Protein backbone atom coordinates (compact mmCIF):
# COMPACT_ATOMS: atom_id res chain seq x y z
CA UNK A 1 0.00 0.00 0.00
CA UNK A 2 1.57 3.27 -1.09
CA UNK A 3 0.83 5.98 1.40
CA UNK A 4 2.53 9.03 -0.05
CA UNK A 5 3.18 10.21 -3.58
CA UNK A 6 2.76 13.94 -3.11
CA UNK A 7 5.98 15.85 -2.74
CA UNK A 8 5.86 17.43 0.72
CA UNK A 9 7.72 20.68 1.40
CA UNK A 10 10.64 20.40 3.79
CA UNK A 11 9.99 20.59 7.51
CA UNK A 12 13.54 21.67 8.25
CA UNK A 13 12.75 25.34 8.06
CA UNK A 14 9.97 27.52 9.48
CA UNK A 15 7.03 26.51 11.58
CA UNK A 16 3.24 26.65 11.63
CA UNK A 17 2.35 30.34 11.51
CA UNK A 18 -0.49 32.83 11.52
CA UNK A 19 -0.74 33.02 7.71
CA UNK A 20 -1.42 29.31 7.23
CA UNK A 21 -3.76 29.06 10.19
CA UNK A 22 -5.70 32.13 9.00
CA UNK A 23 -6.10 30.51 5.56
CA UNK A 24 -7.35 27.40 7.35
CA UNK A 25 -9.84 29.38 9.43
CA UNK A 26 -11.09 31.13 6.31
CA UNK A 27 -11.65 27.74 4.66
CA UNK A 28 -13.57 26.55 7.72
CA UNK A 29 -15.57 29.77 7.86
CA UNK A 30 -16.78 29.72 4.28
CA UNK A 31 -17.36 25.97 4.02
CA UNK A 32 -20.42 25.81 6.27
CA UNK A 33 -23.82 27.03 5.23
CA UNK A 34 -24.65 28.66 8.58
CA UNK A 35 -21.98 31.29 7.85
CA UNK A 36 -23.73 32.40 4.69
CA UNK A 37 -27.15 32.33 6.33
CA UNK A 38 -25.87 34.56 9.14
CA UNK A 39 -24.14 36.99 6.75
CA UNK A 40 -27.27 37.10 4.60
CA UNK A 41 -29.42 37.95 7.63
CA UNK A 42 -26.96 40.63 8.79
CA UNK A 43 -27.16 42.41 5.44
CA UNK A 44 -30.81 41.80 4.68
CA UNK A 45 -32.22 42.44 8.15
CA UNK A 46 -29.83 45.36 8.60
CA UNK A 47 -30.96 47.11 5.45
CA UNK A 48 -34.56 45.87 5.65
CA UNK A 49 -35.24 47.08 9.17
CA UNK A 50 -33.55 50.42 8.48
CA UNK A 51 -35.69 50.92 5.38
CA UNK A 52 -38.88 49.88 7.15
CA UNK A 53 -38.40 52.10 10.20
CA UNK A 54 -37.29 55.07 8.07
CA UNK A 55 -40.36 54.61 5.89
CA UNK A 56 -42.69 54.60 8.92
CA UNK A 57 -40.98 57.63 10.44
CA UNK A 58 -41.16 59.56 7.16
CA UNK A 59 -44.80 58.69 6.61
CA UNK A 60 -45.88 60.01 10.02
CA UNK A 61 -43.61 63.07 9.99
CA UNK A 62 -46.56 65.50 9.88
CA UNK A 63 -48.00 63.98 13.07
CA UNK A 64 -44.64 63.99 14.86
CA UNK A 65 -44.11 66.28 17.84
CA UNK A 66 -41.65 69.12 17.67
CA UNK A 67 -39.45 67.28 20.14
CA UNK A 68 -39.42 64.24 17.90
CA UNK A 69 -38.58 66.31 14.87
CA UNK A 70 -35.81 68.14 16.67
CA UNK A 71 -34.12 64.93 17.71
CA UNK A 72 -34.56 63.06 14.42
CA UNK A 73 -31.15 62.12 13.10
CA UNK A 74 -31.31 61.00 9.45
CA UNK A 75 -27.96 59.20 9.82
CA UNK A 76 -28.44 57.34 13.11
CA UNK A 77 -31.98 56.47 12.08
CA UNK A 78 -30.76 54.97 8.82
CA UNK A 79 -28.66 52.54 10.89
CA UNK A 80 -31.51 51.18 13.04
CA UNK A 81 -31.13 47.76 11.39
CA UNK A 82 -28.45 47.20 14.05
CA UNK A 83 -31.23 46.04 16.39
CA UNK A 84 -31.23 42.74 14.54
CA UNK A 85 -27.90 42.53 12.75
CA UNK A 86 -25.86 43.04 15.94
CA UNK A 87 -27.45 39.90 17.42
CA UNK A 88 -26.62 37.83 14.35
CA UNK A 89 -23.06 39.17 14.46
CA UNK A 90 -22.89 37.87 18.05
CA UNK A 91 -24.19 34.46 17.03
CA UNK A 92 -21.67 34.16 14.19
CA UNK A 93 -18.75 35.44 16.25
CA UNK A 94 -19.43 33.04 19.10
CA UNK A 95 -20.26 30.07 16.90
CA UNK A 96 -17.01 29.95 14.97
CA UNK A 97 -15.43 28.71 18.18
CA UNK A 98 -18.31 27.19 20.19
CA UNK A 99 -19.21 24.89 17.27
CA UNK A 100 -15.68 23.48 17.52
CA UNK A 101 -16.18 22.70 21.18
CA UNK A 102 -19.59 21.12 20.66
CA UNK A 103 -18.35 18.82 17.90
CA UNK A 104 -14.92 18.09 19.39
CA UNK A 105 -13.28 19.60 16.31
CA UNK A 106 -11.27 21.88 18.63
CA UNK A 107 -9.04 18.93 19.50
CA UNK A 108 -8.23 18.33 15.86
CA UNK A 109 -7.60 22.05 15.40
CA UNK A 110 -5.29 22.34 18.40
CA UNK A 111 -3.40 19.23 17.28
CA UNK A 112 -2.30 21.14 14.16
CA UNK A 113 -0.64 24.10 15.90
CA UNK A 114 2.13 24.23 18.48
CA UNK A 115 0.86 27.50 19.98
CA UNK A 116 -2.82 27.88 20.78
CA UNK A 117 -2.59 31.66 20.51
CA UNK A 118 -2.32 31.26 16.73
CA UNK A 119 -5.79 29.72 16.51
CA UNK A 120 -7.40 32.54 18.46
CA UNK A 121 -5.58 35.20 16.45
CA UNK A 122 -6.54 33.59 13.14
CA UNK A 123 -10.20 33.34 14.09
CA UNK A 124 -10.16 36.97 15.20
CA UNK A 125 -8.72 38.13 11.89
CA UNK A 126 -11.28 36.18 9.85
CA UNK A 127 -14.36 37.26 11.80
CA UNK A 128 -13.30 40.89 12.23
CA UNK A 129 -12.40 41.41 8.58
CA UNK A 130 -15.52 39.66 7.27
CA UNK A 131 -17.87 41.52 9.61
CA UNK A 132 -16.16 44.82 8.90
CA UNK A 133 -16.71 44.37 5.15
CA UNK A 134 -20.28 43.11 5.55
CA UNK A 135 -20.99 45.78 8.17
CA UNK A 136 -19.78 48.60 5.91
CA UNK A 137 -21.81 47.30 2.98
CA UNK A 138 -24.89 47.18 5.21
CA UNK A 139 -24.19 50.62 6.69
CA UNK A 140 -23.72 52.38 3.36
CA UNK A 141 -26.65 50.63 1.70
CA UNK A 142 -28.90 51.44 4.66
CA UNK A 143 -27.76 55.04 4.63
CA UNK A 144 -28.42 55.65 0.95
CA UNK A 145 -31.72 53.75 1.00
CA UNK A 146 -32.93 55.80 3.97
CA UNK A 147 -32.04 59.14 2.37
CA UNK A 148 -33.89 58.15 -0.79
CA UNK A 149 -37.00 57.31 1.25
CA UNK A 150 -36.79 60.54 3.22
CA UNK A 151 -36.39 62.57 0.01
CA UNK A 152 -39.37 60.82 -1.52
CA UNK A 153 -41.44 61.93 1.48
CA UNK A 154 -40.60 65.57 0.90
CA UNK A 155 -37.33 65.70 2.79
CA UNK A 156 -35.06 68.56 1.97
CA UNK A 157 -31.35 68.43 1.53
CA UNK A 158 -29.14 70.56 3.71
CA UNK A 159 -27.52 73.49 1.95
CA UNK A 160 -23.82 72.86 1.50
CA UNK A 161 -21.86 73.61 4.66
CA UNK A 162 -24.92 73.92 6.91
CA UNK A 163 -24.99 71.84 10.07
CA UNK A 164 -27.68 69.29 10.72
CA UNK A 165 -28.74 71.19 13.81
CA UNK A 166 -30.03 74.05 11.69
CA UNK A 167 -31.96 71.70 9.53
CA UNK A 168 -33.76 69.66 12.20
CA UNK A 169 -35.30 72.84 13.59
CA UNK A 170 -37.17 73.35 10.35
CA UNK A 171 -40.48 71.71 9.68
CA UNK A 172 -39.48 69.47 6.78
CA UNK A 173 -37.73 66.10 7.06
CA UNK A 174 -33.97 66.55 7.12
CA UNK A 175 -31.99 64.67 4.49
CA UNK A 176 -28.20 64.54 4.33
CA UNK A 177 -25.62 63.51 1.79
CA UNK A 178 -22.63 61.38 2.56
CA UNK A 179 -20.54 64.57 2.31
CA UNK A 180 -22.48 66.47 5.00
CA UNK A 181 -20.42 67.14 8.13
CA UNK A 182 -19.80 64.06 10.26
CA UNK A 183 -21.89 61.78 8.05
CA UNK A 184 -19.18 59.71 6.38
CA UNK A 185 -17.52 59.09 9.73
CA UNK A 186 -20.81 57.98 11.30
CA UNK A 187 -21.60 55.52 8.51
CA UNK A 188 -18.08 54.07 8.57
CA UNK A 189 -18.21 53.68 12.36
CA UNK A 190 -21.55 51.92 12.04
CA UNK A 191 -19.81 49.04 10.27
CA UNK A 192 -16.92 49.20 12.74
CA UNK A 193 -19.41 48.81 15.62
CA UNK A 194 -20.46 45.41 14.27
CA UNK A 195 -16.84 44.35 13.73
CA UNK A 196 -15.94 45.22 17.34
CA UNK A 197 -18.98 43.31 18.59
CA UNK A 198 -17.92 40.24 16.60
CA UNK A 199 -14.56 40.25 18.41
CA UNK A 200 -16.31 40.59 21.77
CA UNK A 201 -18.57 37.63 20.88
CA UNK A 202 -15.58 35.55 19.78
CA UNK A 203 -13.88 36.17 23.12
CA UNK A 204 -17.09 35.21 24.88
CA UNK A 205 -17.20 31.98 22.86
CA UNK A 206 -13.68 31.06 23.94
CA UNK A 207 -14.62 31.72 27.56
CA UNK A 208 -18.03 30.01 27.68
CA UNK A 209 -17.45 27.27 25.04
CA UNK A 210 -21.16 26.51 24.71
CA UNK A 211 -23.12 28.15 21.90
CA UNK A 212 -26.28 28.71 23.92
CA UNK A 213 -24.36 30.09 26.89
CA UNK A 214 -22.25 32.50 24.86
CA UNK A 215 -25.19 33.83 22.86
CA UNK A 216 -27.32 34.28 26.00
CA UNK A 217 -24.63 36.36 27.66
CA UNK A 218 -24.07 38.36 24.49
CA UNK A 219 -27.78 39.21 24.28
CA UNK A 220 -27.77 39.94 28.00
CA UNK A 221 -24.94 42.46 27.69
CA UNK A 222 -26.49 44.16 24.70
CA UNK A 223 -30.20 44.20 25.51
CA UNK A 224 -30.87 43.17 29.10
CA UNK A 225 -28.18 45.20 30.89
CA UNK A 226 -29.66 48.57 29.81
CA UNK A 227 -33.10 47.44 31.07
CA UNK A 228 -31.74 46.38 34.45
CA UNK A 229 -29.92 49.70 34.67
CA UNK A 230 -33.28 51.49 34.59
CA UNK A 231 -34.06 50.14 38.06
CA UNK A 232 -31.05 51.87 39.62
CA UNK A 233 -31.08 55.37 41.16
CA UNK A 234 -30.78 57.99 38.44
CA UNK A 235 -27.41 59.26 39.68
CA UNK A 236 -25.83 55.87 39.21
CA UNK A 237 -27.81 55.15 36.08
CA UNK A 238 -26.70 58.36 34.38
CA UNK A 239 -23.05 57.82 35.11
CA UNK A 240 -23.06 54.22 33.88
CA UNK A 241 -25.38 54.55 30.90
CA UNK A 242 -22.77 55.83 28.39
CA UNK A 243 -20.75 52.65 28.98
CA UNK A 244 -23.53 50.31 27.84
CA UNK A 245 -22.32 48.63 24.64
CA UNK A 246 -25.60 49.41 22.87
CA UNK A 247 -25.22 53.09 23.76
CA UNK A 248 -21.65 53.06 22.51
CA UNK A 249 -23.06 51.86 19.21
CA UNK A 250 -25.52 54.73 19.10
CA UNK A 251 -22.78 57.18 20.04
CA UNK A 252 -20.80 56.08 17.00
CA UNK A 253 -23.58 56.83 14.51
CA UNK A 254 -25.26 59.92 15.99
CA UNK A 255 -24.60 63.15 14.08
CA UNK A 256 -27.07 65.70 15.50
CA UNK A 257 -26.52 68.04 18.38
CA UNK A 258 -25.99 66.61 21.82
CA UNK A 259 -28.41 69.07 23.38
CA UNK A 260 -31.21 66.71 22.38
CA UNK A 261 -32.49 63.81 24.49
CA UNK A 262 -29.18 62.00 24.03
CA UNK A 263 -27.37 64.73 25.93
CA UNK A 264 -25.07 63.32 28.59
CA UNK A 265 -26.04 59.78 27.68
CA UNK A 266 -23.50 59.37 24.95
CA UNK A 267 -19.76 59.59 24.58
CA UNK A 268 -18.33 61.33 21.55
CA UNK A 269 -17.92 58.87 18.63
CA UNK A 270 -14.22 58.21 19.00
CA UNK A 271 -14.36 57.78 22.76
CA UNK A 272 -17.16 55.28 22.16
CA UNK A 273 -14.97 53.40 19.67
CA UNK A 274 -12.17 53.32 22.19
CA UNK A 275 -14.36 52.02 25.03
CA UNK A 276 -15.94 49.31 22.88
CA UNK A 277 -12.52 48.28 21.54
CA UNK A 278 -11.40 48.00 25.15
CA UNK A 279 -14.34 45.70 25.95
CA UNK A 280 -13.57 43.54 22.92
CA UNK A 281 -9.90 43.33 23.93
CA UNK A 282 -10.77 42.35 27.50
CA UNK A 283 -13.11 39.56 26.36
CA UNK A 284 -10.61 38.29 23.80
CA UNK A 285 -7.73 38.29 26.28
CA UNK A 286 -9.86 36.46 28.84
CA UNK A 287 -10.71 33.96 26.10
CA UNK A 288 -7.00 33.52 25.36
CA UNK A 289 -6.28 32.98 29.04
CA UNK A 290 -8.87 30.21 29.24
CA UNK A 291 -7.76 28.68 25.93
CA UNK A 292 -4.21 28.38 27.15
CA UNK A 293 -4.93 27.20 30.66
CA UNK A 294 -7.79 24.75 30.28
CA UNK A 295 -7.76 21.24 28.84
CA UNK A 296 -9.08 21.19 25.29
Amino acid at each position, binding site marked *: *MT*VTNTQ*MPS*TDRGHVGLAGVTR*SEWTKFRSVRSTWICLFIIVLAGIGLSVLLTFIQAARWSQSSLQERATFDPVAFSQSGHFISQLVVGILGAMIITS*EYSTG*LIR*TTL*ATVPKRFTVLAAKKIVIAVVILVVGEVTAFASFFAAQIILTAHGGTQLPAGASIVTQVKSASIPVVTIMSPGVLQAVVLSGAYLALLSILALGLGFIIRSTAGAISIFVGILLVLPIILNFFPSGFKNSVEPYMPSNLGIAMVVTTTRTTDWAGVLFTPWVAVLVLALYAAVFLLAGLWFLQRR*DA
Partner: protein
Amino acid sequence: MIDVKNLSKSYGKTRAVHDLSFTVETGVITGFLGPNGSGKSTTMRMIMGLDRPNRGTATINGKPFHEIKWPLREVGALLEAKAIHPGRSARSHLTSLAQTNAIPKARVDEVLDLVGLTQVANRKAGKFSLGMNQRLGIASALLGDPAVLLFDEPINGLDPEGIRWVRELLQSLARDGRTIFVSSHLMSEMALTATDLVVIGRGELIADTTVNNFIDSNTVATVLVRSSDSSRLNQVLAGLGGSITTQDDGSLLVTKIDGTQIGNAALSSGIAIHELSPQQASLEEVFMELTADSVDFHGTTNAKVTS
Protein backbone atom coordinates in the same frame (compact mmCIF):
# COMPACT_ATOMS: atom_id res chain seq x y z
CA MET B 1 9.17 7.33 19.30
CA ILE B 2 6.78 8.29 22.05
CA ASP B 3 8.10 8.60 25.56
CA VAL B 4 5.76 8.86 28.54
CA LYS B 5 7.31 9.52 31.94
CA ASN B 6 5.54 9.51 35.31
CA LEU B 7 2.41 10.91 33.76
CA SER B 8 -0.45 11.70 36.17
CA LYS B 9 -3.79 13.36 35.55
CA SER B 10 -6.85 13.90 37.71
CA TYR B 11 -10.16 15.47 36.76
CA GLY B 12 -11.43 16.82 40.05
CA LYS B 13 -11.63 13.77 42.26
CA THR B 14 -11.36 11.31 39.37
CA ARG B 15 -7.87 9.91 39.05
CA ALA B 16 -7.63 9.18 35.32
CA VAL B 17 -3.91 8.40 34.96
CA HIS B 18 -1.42 7.73 37.71
CA ASP B 19 2.36 7.73 37.46
CA LEU B 20 2.33 6.13 34.03
CA SER B 21 5.61 5.47 32.22
CA PHE B 22 6.25 3.61 28.97
CA THR B 23 7.86 4.05 25.57
CA VAL B 24 6.42 3.35 22.14
CA GLU B 25 9.07 2.10 19.74
CA THR B 26 9.55 2.93 16.08
CA GLY B 27 8.73 0.50 13.30
CA VAL B 28 6.25 -1.66 15.17
CA ILE B 29 2.60 -1.43 16.12
CA THR B 30 2.14 -0.91 19.82
CA GLY B 31 -1.25 -1.82 21.16
CA PHE B 32 -2.68 0.18 24.05
CA LEU B 33 -5.05 -1.95 26.12
CA GLY B 34 -7.16 -1.26 29.15
CA PRO B 35 -10.74 -1.65 30.30
CA ASN B 36 -13.28 1.18 29.95
CA GLY B 37 -12.25 4.29 31.82
CA SER B 38 -8.71 3.07 32.44
CA GLY B 39 -7.21 6.26 31.00
CA LYS B 40 -6.25 5.37 27.42
CA SER B 41 -7.87 8.37 25.78
CA THR B 42 -6.63 10.66 28.54
CA THR B 43 -3.07 9.46 28.00
CA MET B 44 -3.34 10.04 24.25
CA ARG B 45 -4.73 13.54 24.78
CA MET B 46 -1.79 14.36 27.04
CA ILE B 47 0.69 13.08 24.44
CA MET B 48 -0.99 15.39 21.91
CA GLY B 49 -0.70 18.39 24.22
CA LEU B 50 -4.47 18.72 24.55
CA ASP B 51 -4.79 17.95 28.25
CA ARG B 52 -2.23 19.24 30.69
CA PRO B 53 -0.78 16.56 32.98
CA ASN B 54 -0.68 17.22 36.72
CA ARG B 55 2.73 15.61 36.79
CA GLY B 56 5.14 13.96 34.39
CA THR B 57 5.96 14.48 30.72
CA ALA B 58 5.11 13.07 27.35
CA THR B 59 7.38 13.59 24.35
CA ILE B 60 7.17 12.76 20.66
CA ASN B 61 10.55 12.12 19.06
CA GLY B 62 12.11 13.74 22.09
CA LYS B 63 10.02 16.93 22.07
CA PRO B 64 6.89 17.87 23.98
CA PHE B 65 4.00 18.56 21.58
CA HIS B 66 4.19 22.36 21.96
CA GLU B 67 7.75 22.43 20.67
CA ILE B 68 6.98 20.63 17.42
CA LYS B 69 7.31 23.10 14.55
CA TRP B 70 5.00 21.34 12.07
CA PRO B 71 2.74 19.14 14.24
CA LEU B 72 0.61 17.53 11.51
CA ARG B 73 3.73 16.47 9.66
CA GLU B 74 5.39 14.93 12.66
CA VAL B 75 2.47 13.34 14.49
CA GLY B 76 -0.98 12.38 13.25
CA ALA B 77 -3.78 11.46 15.60
CA LEU B 78 -7.25 10.02 15.37
CA LEU B 79 -8.74 10.80 18.76
CA GLU B 80 -12.49 11.07 18.20
CA ALA B 81 -14.04 9.99 14.94
CA LYS B 82 -16.94 12.42 15.16
CA ALA B 83 -14.75 15.47 15.73
CA ILE B 84 -15.90 17.10 12.51
CA HIS B 85 -18.32 19.94 11.82
CA PRO B 86 -21.42 18.15 10.50
CA GLY B 87 -22.06 20.86 7.92
CA ARG B 88 -18.61 20.75 6.36
CA SER B 89 -17.57 18.45 3.53
CA ALA B 90 -14.78 15.94 3.97
CA ARG B 91 -12.70 17.76 1.39
CA SER B 92 -13.09 21.18 3.05
CA HIS B 93 -12.32 19.66 6.42
CA LEU B 94 -9.09 18.12 5.19
CA THR B 95 -8.19 21.23 3.17
CA SER B 96 -8.49 23.40 6.27
CA LEU B 97 -6.19 21.06 8.17
CA ALA B 98 -3.68 20.92 5.32
CA GLN B 99 -3.46 24.71 5.12
CA THR B 100 -2.28 25.05 8.72
CA ASN B 101 0.83 22.97 8.06
CA ALA B 102 1.57 24.07 4.48
CA ILE B 103 0.60 20.67 3.10
CA PRO B 104 0.00 20.70 -0.69
CA LYS B 105 -3.63 20.44 -1.87
CA ALA B 106 -2.82 17.33 -3.91
CA ARG B 107 -2.22 15.49 -0.67
CA VAL B 108 -5.87 16.02 0.34
CA ASP B 109 -7.07 14.12 -2.71
CA GLU B 110 -4.43 11.49 -2.09
CA VAL B 111 -5.58 10.70 1.47
CA LEU B 112 -9.24 10.82 0.41
CA ASP B 113 -8.39 8.19 -2.15
CA LEU B 114 -6.37 6.20 0.35
CA VAL B 115 -9.30 5.87 2.75
CA GLY B 116 -11.84 5.39 -0.02
CA LEU B 117 -13.84 8.59 0.46
CA THR B 118 -13.21 10.20 -2.94
CA GLN B 119 -16.78 9.53 -4.09
CA VAL B 120 -18.31 11.31 -1.09
CA ALA B 121 -15.62 13.96 -0.58
CA ASN B 122 -17.99 16.84 -1.27
CA ARG B 123 -20.83 15.58 0.89
CA LYS B 124 -21.48 16.97 4.35
CA ALA B 125 -19.67 14.98 7.01
CA GLY B 126 -22.81 15.07 9.16
CA LYS B 127 -24.39 12.62 6.72
CA PHE B 128 -21.52 10.15 7.08
CA SER B 129 -21.89 6.77 8.78
CA LEU B 130 -19.72 5.98 11.78
CA GLY B 131 -17.40 3.97 9.54
CA MET B 132 -17.04 6.83 7.06
CA ASN B 133 -16.29 9.25 9.91
CA GLN B 134 -13.67 6.83 11.14
CA ARG B 135 -12.08 6.77 7.69
CA LEU B 136 -12.12 10.57 7.53
CA GLY B 137 -10.41 10.67 10.93
CA ILE B 138 -7.76 8.29 9.65
CA ALA B 139 -7.33 10.45 6.55
CA SER B 140 -6.69 13.53 8.70
CA ALA B 141 -4.14 11.63 10.79
CA LEU B 142 -2.28 10.59 7.61
CA LEU B 143 -2.55 14.02 5.96
CA GLY B 144 0.89 15.27 6.96
CA ASP B 145 2.57 11.91 6.23
CA PRO B 146 3.83 11.86 9.84
CA ALA B 147 6.36 9.45 11.32
CA VAL B 148 4.35 9.06 14.51
CA LEU B 149 0.69 8.04 14.54
CA LEU B 150 -1.82 7.70 17.36
CA PHE B 151 -5.16 5.99 16.86
CA ASP B 152 -7.78 5.85 19.60
CA GLU B 153 -10.05 2.90 18.82
CA PRO B 154 -9.73 3.16 15.03
CA ILE B 155 -11.86 0.12 14.25
CA ASN B 156 -14.86 1.34 16.22
CA GLY B 157 -17.89 1.08 13.97
CA LEU B 158 -16.10 -0.56 11.06
CA ASP B 159 -17.42 -3.64 9.32
CA PRO B 160 -15.21 -6.77 9.01
CA GLU B 161 -13.85 -5.58 5.70
CA GLY B 162 -13.07 -2.17 7.22
CA ILE B 163 -11.38 -3.80 10.19
CA ARG B 164 -9.13 -5.80 7.88
CA TRP B 165 -8.39 -2.66 5.91
CA VAL B 166 -7.30 -0.80 9.07
CA ARG B 167 -5.18 -3.77 10.17
CA GLU B 168 -3.36 -3.87 6.83
CA LEU B 169 -2.98 -0.10 6.77
CA LEU B 170 -1.43 -0.07 10.25
CA GLN B 171 0.91 -2.88 9.30
CA SER B 172 2.04 -1.14 6.13
CA LEU B 173 2.58 2.09 8.09
CA ALA B 174 4.72 0.21 10.59
CA ARG B 175 6.71 -1.38 7.77
CA ASP B 176 7.54 2.15 6.55
CA GLY B 177 9.34 2.56 9.87
CA ARG B 178 6.71 4.69 11.56
CA THR B 179 5.75 4.70 15.22
CA ILE B 180 2.21 3.37 15.60
CA PHE B 181 0.33 3.61 18.90
CA VAL B 182 -3.18 2.20 18.75
CA SER B 183 -5.77 1.64 21.46
CA SER B 184 -8.53 -0.89 21.15
CA HIS B 185 -11.12 -2.71 23.19
CA LEU B 186 -10.80 -5.78 21.06
CA MET B 187 -7.95 -7.82 22.46
CA SER B 188 -8.30 -10.40 19.75
CA GLU B 189 -7.77 -7.63 17.21
CA MET B 190 -4.63 -6.49 19.02
CA ALA B 191 -3.31 -10.05 18.97
CA LEU B 192 -3.59 -9.97 15.19
CA THR B 193 -2.30 -6.45 14.67
CA ALA B 194 0.14 -5.41 17.36
CA THR B 195 3.65 -6.53 18.17
CA ASP B 196 4.17 -4.58 21.35
CA LEU B 197 1.70 -3.97 24.14
CA VAL B 198 1.10 -1.37 26.80
CA VAL B 199 -1.59 -2.53 29.22
CA ILE B 200 -3.14 -0.22 31.80
CA GLY B 201 -5.81 -0.58 34.46
CA ARG B 202 -7.23 2.27 36.55
CA GLY B 203 -4.68 4.62 35.04
CA GLU B 204 -1.70 2.55 36.13
CA LEU B 205 0.70 0.46 34.09
CA ILE B 206 0.05 -3.28 34.20
CA ALA B 207 2.41 -4.42 31.47
CA ASP B 208 4.79 -2.95 28.90
CA THR B 209 5.95 -5.87 26.79
CA THR B 210 5.45 -7.75 23.51
CA VAL B 211 2.22 -9.55 22.66
CA ASN B 212 3.96 -12.95 22.72
CA ASN B 213 5.69 -12.34 26.03
CA PHE B 214 2.49 -11.06 27.49
CA ILE B 215 0.62 -14.26 26.67
CA ASP B 216 3.48 -16.59 27.63
CA SER B 217 4.21 -15.04 30.97
CA ASN B 218 0.61 -14.77 31.96
CA THR B 219 -0.77 -18.15 30.99
CA VAL B 220 -0.40 -21.62 32.40
CA ALA B 221 -0.32 -24.47 29.88
CA THR B 222 -3.67 -26.23 30.20
CA VAL B 223 -4.72 -29.57 28.67
CA LEU B 224 -8.30 -30.62 28.10
CA VAL B 225 -8.88 -34.37 28.61
CA ARG B 226 -11.92 -36.51 27.84
CA SER B 227 -11.76 -40.15 28.80
CA SER B 228 -13.76 -43.30 29.49
CA ASP B 229 -13.42 -42.82 33.28
CA SER B 230 -13.03 -39.24 34.42
CA SER B 231 -13.08 -39.79 38.16
CA ARG B 232 -10.39 -42.50 38.12
CA LEU B 233 -8.21 -40.49 35.75
CA ASN B 234 -8.66 -37.52 38.07
CA GLN B 235 -7.13 -39.54 40.93
CA VAL B 236 -4.31 -40.88 38.79
CA LEU B 237 -3.34 -37.43 37.50
CA ALA B 238 -3.61 -35.88 40.94
CA GLY B 239 -1.14 -38.52 42.10
CA LEU B 240 1.30 -37.30 39.44
CA GLY B 241 1.08 -33.74 40.78
CA GLY B 242 -1.46 -32.39 38.27
CA SER B 243 -3.94 -29.70 39.17
CA ILE B 244 -7.35 -30.70 37.90
CA THR B 245 -10.71 -29.01 37.35
CA THR B 246 -13.68 -31.15 36.38
CA GLN B 247 -16.00 -29.42 33.93
CA ASP B 248 -19.76 -29.87 33.73
CA ASP B 249 -19.57 -32.29 30.83
CA GLY B 250 -17.15 -34.54 32.73
CA SER B 251 -14.05 -33.44 30.85
CA LEU B 252 -10.96 -32.45 32.84
CA LEU B 253 -8.85 -29.31 32.61
CA VAL B 254 -5.36 -30.24 33.71
CA THR B 255 -2.42 -27.96 34.48
CA LYS B 256 1.12 -28.56 35.80
CA ILE B 257 1.59 -31.82 33.86
CA ASP B 258 1.72 -32.08 30.08
CA GLY B 259 -0.06 -34.16 27.45
CA THR B 260 2.60 -36.86 27.25
CA GLN B 261 2.47 -37.55 30.97
CA ILE B 262 -1.34 -37.62 30.88
CA GLY B 263 -1.41 -40.04 27.92
CA ASN B 264 1.14 -42.40 29.47
CA ALA B 265 -0.64 -42.41 32.82
CA ALA B 266 -3.97 -43.20 31.15
CA LEU B 267 -2.47 -46.07 29.16
CA SER B 268 -0.88 -47.70 32.21
CA SER B 269 -4.16 -47.35 34.12
CA GLY B 270 -6.20 -48.82 31.28
CA ILE B 271 -8.30 -45.69 30.71
CA ALA B 272 -9.25 -44.84 27.13
CA ILE B 273 -8.48 -41.27 26.06
CA HIS B 274 -11.15 -39.71 23.82
CA GLU B 275 -9.66 -36.27 23.55
CA LEU B 276 -6.39 -34.71 24.61
CA SER B 277 -5.99 -31.09 23.52
CA PRO B 278 -3.69 -28.31 24.72
CA GLN B 279 -5.62 -25.07 25.38
CA GLN B 280 -4.24 -21.84 23.91
CA ALA B 281 -5.17 -18.95 26.16
CA SER B 282 -6.27 -16.03 24.04
CA LEU B 283 -5.06 -12.53 24.64
CA GLU B 284 -8.64 -11.77 25.56
CA GLU B 285 -8.60 -14.19 28.49
CA VAL B 286 -5.20 -13.11 29.69
CA PHE B 287 -6.27 -9.52 29.56
CA MET B 288 -9.52 -10.19 31.42
CA GLU B 289 -7.73 -12.07 34.13
CA LEU B 290 -5.04 -9.46 34.57
CA THR B 291 -7.32 -6.47 34.69
CA ALA B 292 -10.10 -8.14 36.66
CA ASP B 293 -9.06 -6.26 39.78
CA SER B 294 -8.83 -2.94 38.05
CA VAL B 295 -12.11 -2.83 36.18
CA ASP B 296 -14.15 0.13 37.32
CA PHE B 297 -17.47 -0.87 35.94
CA HIS B 298 -18.41 -4.49 36.30
CA GLY B 299 -21.20 -5.77 34.13
CA THR B 300 -23.40 -8.51 35.50
CA THR B 301 -25.16 -11.26 33.61
CA ASN B 302 -27.48 -12.51 36.32
CA ALA B 303 -29.36 -9.36 37.18
CA LYS B 304 -31.81 -10.06 39.96
CA VAL B 305 -35.25 -8.57 39.84
CA THR B 306 -36.16 -7.09 43.17
CA SER B 307 -39.73 -6.34 44.00
